């Protein structure tokens, strides 16, 4: 399935877009998604360490499944406040 991933801050500048798309197998997890990004968007791979993934606007871990249709975003280390 195709997953549209929202990008912010440094990743948005690196990717030159507010989102990127990747293809993953049905039933894929966040860990699978990160591997797919490394393969399909190598320009982003160097920036992935330290980045969290949000699914449905909630932080997930590598085992979290990508619910079909859920909003997916890459969250670089935050610096608000």
């Amino acid at each position, binding site marked *: 399935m195709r997953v549209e991933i*929202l990008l*912010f*801050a*440094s990743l948005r*500048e690196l990717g030159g877009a507010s989102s990127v798309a990747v293809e993953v197998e049905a039933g894929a997890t966040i860990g699978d998604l990160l591997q797919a990004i490394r393969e399909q968007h190598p320009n982003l791979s160097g920036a992935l360490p*330290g980045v969290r993934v*949000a699914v449905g*606007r*909630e*932080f997930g871990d590598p085992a979290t499944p990508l619910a079909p249709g859920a*909003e997916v*975003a890459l*969250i*670089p*280390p*935050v*610096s*608000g*406040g």
Partner: protein
Amino acid sequence: MNTIELIEGAIDIPATLAKAASPDCGALVTFLGTVRNEHYGRAVRYLEYSAYAPMALAKMDQIASELTSRWPITHVAMVHRLGRLEIGEASILIALSLPHRREGFDALRHAIDTFKQAVPIWKKEHFEDGTAIWVEGS
């Protein structure tokens, strides 16, 4: 009813404090974060904040719920400014109304510490020499 906002333009501090204040509370503990003119020895000209707004607001709501469940807080005001901020301007205001000050300070520290870990907002520092970097982590 809490006050949870992401705004463009200056934070209206008196209006926000007025919303957070409560007649049955003796403390309105307040944290105001402001833009500092240097970072690691480099002169900062201005800052730019951006957010993943829907998730940031959801996280701010979660923090407010946690605060009111752990402490006897009557009102949580949590306002973060986005866009360009000049030196000295306020980026965040957190104000909590409680009956007594002592536990208010604990709650306030928890609020800002949690905010800085969990809310997807990012700061870009623009330096006097014309360069700029996204700050990662805080």
